[in-house]
């Protein structure tokens, strides 16, 4: 069920001598370069409405992948962890003047702490039962954030972020915010990649696939399970902080409802469980698809002409198309888009090599 366990060798000398760069490497390089110059090339809309949220959710999805994809512990609480990070970050920065990088860490840390607490049932239950425990956590955390007055929401249940500034760098423009998101995501992704390809990642996968055997071999289930929850929550918390600083500019509880947890879960299932690439591919799929469908429907409307019945029908049709596509991809490749890419990349390598 897992994909992307061991890293592919980055460069192999081809039979004819010289270095053969695998398709994977080329693609990665291209993406990194594109991502670095994105603000110069892409319009505001693309950055603000597409790239930034995709990166942020990709980060959250990567976190979820660690606990659910690698360690096999199903968590339905990722959105709640994001919420914790968001509120912690905005309160740290807005009310206490904590500098942004530290505020992001605060958000992540608080979230991680709560993640560990939420993860404790995993020592006794698993599968569907664990899922429901995390579901309960999702509801309870959101409920607490909403009801407890010290969050400062009072009669306005949304916290707006004051103007974002790091030292003397005013993050006014979208490009600035994009670079902050990009650098944080890059950093954490590299860190996470190392993590999942290290002994810890292998221990997680042992837990997932052969948990009894693993514990017999001396792998402490307790430590690694809690670590998985900790990391997942940490990543979600940082993602939440990025939301308030670089995307919506406000912390609002209704943006972190159960629906979002399911969306993130959908991202890793469709993208590929146990795969770093899969987390981001899944984020692109889940976030971009409704927009693409919406655009397509918009074009359709202009073709058919303005008719209000069509408008409602088309809007609902978006749901149908989305569901159909989800099912299609699940059937086509139950192991996710990452596996699809892998197959494509190997095929290309074979062709080239």
């Amino acid at each position, binding site marked *: 069920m897992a994909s992307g366990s061991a890293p592919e060798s980055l460069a192999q000398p081809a039979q004819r001598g010289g270095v053969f760069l695998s398709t994977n490497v080329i693609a990665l390089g291209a993406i990194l370069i594109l991502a670095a110059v994105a603000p110069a090339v892409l319009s505001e809309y693309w950055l603000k409405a597409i790239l930034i949220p995709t990166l942020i959710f990709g980060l959250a999805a990567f976190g979820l992948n660690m606990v659910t994809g690698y360690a096999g512990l*199903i968590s339905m609480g990722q959105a709640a962890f994001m919420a914790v990070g968001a509120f912690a970050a905005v309160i740290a920065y807005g009310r206490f003047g904590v500098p942004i990088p530290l505020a992001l860490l605060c958000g992540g840390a608080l979230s991680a702490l709560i993640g560990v607490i939420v993860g404790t049932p995993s020592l*006794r239950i698993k599968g*569907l039962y664990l899922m429901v425990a995390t579901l309960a956590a999702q509801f309870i955390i959101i409920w607490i954030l909403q009801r407890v007055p010290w969050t400062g929401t009072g009669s306005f249940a949304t916290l707006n972020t004051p103007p974002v500034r790091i030292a003397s760098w005013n993050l006014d423009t979208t490009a600035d915010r994009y670079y902050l998101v990009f650098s944080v995501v890059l950093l954490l992704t590299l860190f996470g990649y190392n993590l999942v390809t290290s002994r810890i990642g292998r221990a997680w996968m042992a837990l997932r696939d052969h948990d009894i055997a693993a514990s017999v071999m001396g792998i402490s289930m307790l430590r690694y399970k809690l670590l998985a929850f900790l990391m997942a929550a940490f990543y979600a918390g940082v993602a939440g902080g990025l939301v308030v600083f670089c995307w919506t500019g406000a912390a609002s509880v209704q943006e972190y409802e159960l629906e979002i947890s399911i969306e993130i879960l959908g991202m890793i299932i469709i993208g590929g469980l146990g795969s770093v690439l899969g987390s981001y591919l899944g984020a692109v799929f889940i976030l971009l698809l409704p927009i693409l469908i919406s655009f397509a429907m918009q074009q359709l409307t202009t073709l058919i002409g303005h008719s209000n019945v069509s408008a409602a029908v088309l809007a*609902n049709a978006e*749901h*149908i198309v989305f569901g*159909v596509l*989800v099912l299609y991809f*699940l059937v086509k490749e139950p192991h996710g888009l990452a596996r699809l890419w892998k197959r494509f990349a190997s095929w290309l390598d074979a062709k080239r090599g």
Partner: protein
Amino acid sequence: MGDLIYAIELLTTGVFTGLMYSMVALGFVLIFKASSVFNYAQGAMTLFAALTVVGLMPHLGLAGSLLATVAVMCVMAVVAERIVFRPLMGASQLTIFMGTVGFASILEGAAQIVWGTKPQGLKLDIPVEPLKFGELLVSRQDLFAAAVAGVFVGALVWFFRNTRTGLALRAIADDPAAAQVVGIKLRRVWAIAWALAGAIAIAAGVLWGNRIGVHFAMSLIALKALPVLIIGGIDSVAGVIVAGMIVGAAEALGEGFIGTYIGGGVQDVMAYIVALLFLMFRPSGLFGQSTILRV
């Protein structure tokens, strides 16, 4: 005395609400029993069923539209089996779960396209005035809903114990491979399970529609079914009823007695707090089999 009456009323209100949750949870139980899959689309199915009943009622009357909706839900069951289960057979539980999420999306979109987004009223002709037992008020609507729930549960329990298909379902839940060896046709049984779940969706949809009107947010009620499933035991039909009552009562009493001290709003999380407690101390629930999924 006033406080006691109040507590009893709260309790009865809660219990009746809980029975309504049980109705929805039954659908989940059925499908889980048959295929170990958590059917996220159950809420959407409930909405779809309710909309169909309401939509057909002006043309066919209540009885007629109920029958027609049963037919529709059977068709839907076959469709679901064909586009969700058959292609995904053998995939991991999580993947199939995601498949039901996709299916739910399709159902919701289709329901709103076919029947529109206007909220509909669904009126069963039950008088609105509550029954009075001395100072105590009990709603007739709630009693009716409770009766229906009871009938369904009774029928299902009998079905699982005494009919061949019921036994086949239990066999499949226990060990799908062995069941197939014995000659049980997996897909046919699954289709029946889905059809039954559809029938339950109709009943739940009609009862809830009578209570809150028929509209989109109905599919959210389905989420309340999860704590019910945990507390009752995810594969126990009888457990669902008891658990539903517990959840309902906990919600109401919690709201009434704890809520007043912390500013209210406790109702929504009570169910999950109780479920969490069960998960910590008795994960298999009240009546579930304790062999499943314990570490």
